[in-house]
């Protein structure tokens, strides 16, 4: 993570990584909504978009609630030479990222997929269009890439319908939600999503971001973008708490959850805390049959970017040990500014078997692509 752009003004190709990489968090954008999304969007919703825009639970019409640290939150060198937004040009993505970093599997996570639009019919239509677009512009052209089923997640039934439409389609690897939901993400309004995903064999990825309308901390709205950014870890902790305590892993035993871009080093402490509280007050959640940490160990994966960076690098090894080397999925967050380079992401040397797990094999397993 660096904003030191002055010393690197020219787009530079990454050094080839020695081993195969699965990048579990790549952000594609359309070159233009009119050109690439409209073909999949009914005229009615095209007109709606032009007239009313995309209204969600935040006040800004065009930008994020907290201005980012970089234009489009992107690497300065990720703008395609032929124009368009970072992440909008497949050929440039191949040249700058997939080829030199030896990315053999890339998971696409569209963040502006219309998932959390207030108008649920619009949200459904837009999500469906974005899913069609991912196939047309990305996965059908590049076999290394897999799409995410984006869904209007504030409505469980509509979301389940879209998941069912995509079930069995090898273009898709997972269902994608955003972490800042309108209510705690384990609550029953969202259960149809988990049920449909488990049934379809899709892991549910929850990517940090989104606007649920709640103040992003339990004590109100912070002032700075850095606080909002760091705060994704707290939101995801409470989200995971909700998933565990509501019992979704008991109700949907085949469900896999992947937390994306929310950090991971906080997980052991959270699991210890939940175990202790559960033992104290298990009469409140009799639908749980096991310790929270056991559900987490069995059902939850986390992507690595942005890697936490202890002052003493070896400390991170303890943390990964406590989480499990089989639970972390490498991610770069390309083309965003806080990109983790696979050549430098692991702060300490680990043996070859673990490197393969960390960079590649865990992802193949969780997505069922190892068979």
């Amino acid at each position, binding site marked *: 993570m660096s904003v030191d752009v002055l010393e690197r003004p020219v787009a530079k190709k990454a050094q080839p990584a020695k081993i195969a990489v699965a990048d579990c968090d790549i952000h594609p954008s359309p070159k233009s909504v009119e050109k690439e999304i409209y073909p999949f969007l009914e005229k009615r919703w095209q007109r709606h978009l032009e007239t009313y825009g995309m209204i969600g639970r935040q006040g800004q019409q065009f930008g994020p609630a907290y201005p980012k640290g970089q234009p489009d939150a992107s690497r300065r060198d990720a703008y395609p030479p032929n124009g368009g937004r970072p992440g909008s040009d497949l050929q440039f993505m191949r040249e700058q990222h997939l080829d030199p970093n030896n990315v053999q599997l890339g998971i696409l996570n569209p963040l502006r997929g219309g998932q959390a639009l207030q108008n649920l019919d619009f949200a459904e239509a837009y999500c469906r269009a974005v899913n069609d677009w991912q196939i047309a512009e990305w996965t059908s052209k590049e076999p290394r890439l897999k799409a995410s089923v984006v869904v209007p997640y504030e409505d469980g039934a509509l979301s389940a319908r879209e998941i069912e439409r995509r079930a069995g389609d090898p273009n898709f690897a997972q269902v994608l939600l955003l972490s800042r939901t*309108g209510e*705690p993400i384990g609550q029953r309004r969202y259960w149809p999503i988990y049920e449909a995903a488990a049934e379809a064999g899709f892991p549910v990825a929850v990517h940090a971001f989104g606007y649920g309308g*709640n103040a992003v*901390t*339990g004590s109100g709205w912070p002032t*700075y973008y*850095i606080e909002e950014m760091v705060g994704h870890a707290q939101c995801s902790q409470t989200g995971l*708490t909700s998933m565990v305590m509501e019992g979704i892993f008991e109700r949907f035993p085949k469900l896999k959850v992947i937390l994306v871009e929310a950090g991971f080093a906080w997980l052991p402490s959270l699991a210890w805390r939940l175990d202790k509280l559960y033992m104290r007050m298990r009469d409140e959640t009799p639908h749980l049959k096991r310790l929270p940490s056991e559900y987490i160990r069995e059902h939850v994966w986390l992507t690595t970017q942005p*890697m936490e960076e202890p002052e003493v690098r070896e400390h991170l090894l303890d943390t990964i040990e406590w989480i499990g080397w089989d639970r972390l999925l490498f991610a770069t967050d390309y083309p965003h500014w*806080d990109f983790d380079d696979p050549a430098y992401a692991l702060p300490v040397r680990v043996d070859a078997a673990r490197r393969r797990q960390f960079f590649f094999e865990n992802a193949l397993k969780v997505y069922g692509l190892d068979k």
Partner: protein
Amino acid sequence: MSIIHPGAIDCDIHPAVPNLQALLPYMTDYWRDTVVQRGIDALESISYPVNAPITARPDWKPEKGRAGSDLERLRREALIPFGTSTAICNCLYGVHLLFSEDMALGYAQAVNDWIAKEWLDREPKLRASIVVPLQNPELAVEEIERLAADKRFVQVLVPVMGEMPLGKRIYWPIWAAAERHGLALCIHAGSSYRHSVTGIGWTSYYTEDYASNAQAFQAQVTSLICEGVFSKFPNLKVVLAESGFTWLPAHLWRLTKFWRGLRMEIPWVDRTPAEIARENIRLTLQPVDGPPSAGAFERLMEHMQSDELLLFSTDYPHWQFDGDEVLPPGLSSELARKIMVDNPRNTYSRLTETVT
């Protein structure tokens, strides 16, 4: 418990207001009349449901009435068993729940005068926190000024979840008053419920509500550091009470990494957040949300990168541990002594001053 050190300083105990009637003698005529005329109930927060397991350890729970409301029992259960020389009273009465700023001040004054008379006057080992009406920073400062001369008050008490993140400048006059008088700022678990306790809405279960305090503390550490509270008030000590502490290393790793990438947004933060936290932030011991093994706990203590961060606490009468197992396994005798005696002394300048 063999490594308990004599002279322990317990930095988080909770004397309870037994009922609203107990406060009436400490209210002004106006607020006493208001309470009676309007039929106002006791200010009991849902942060600690009266009969929830966390709220009162079974063997510390009286047959009738509120746990922690009896001084004799508190001596017997909280002070004597741990060789405690000094204990700091954090009264968790729900003053922060009120919407009327004036009423909040009325109640805060009553609670503070009640604790001075009913607890501090009767037991010289006790110290207390100043409850302030955070609803209005001017009134909060007024209450600090009213009590600052009484050196038995060692800190200012606020809940971890209020209307706004605590680093925001609107609160700075309060932190300035605390620093000026050598008072620490104690941020304690609990919410004023101005917002849902999570950033994603209201929880279904009390277990989640209580668990979410840890995330709220993380957010407040972010806020205090990013807003520059410690650049402005370098001598201010912030004590996170009943916060859990095992989340701290991971949080500082993340916060420090983002600071490297985004420091242009907060240029007044001129050192790493990890360094600032080690200088200005302390955390009470209980609850220990620790790993099951002593070995892992030792590793975790190394991740803390300092042996000066933790302050001994029993969290009496809350149920965080059983018997006398207040110290987690894996704690060296040396570290136990720092946590029980040295660290509290170095945190609270008022503890070493003569009480007059």
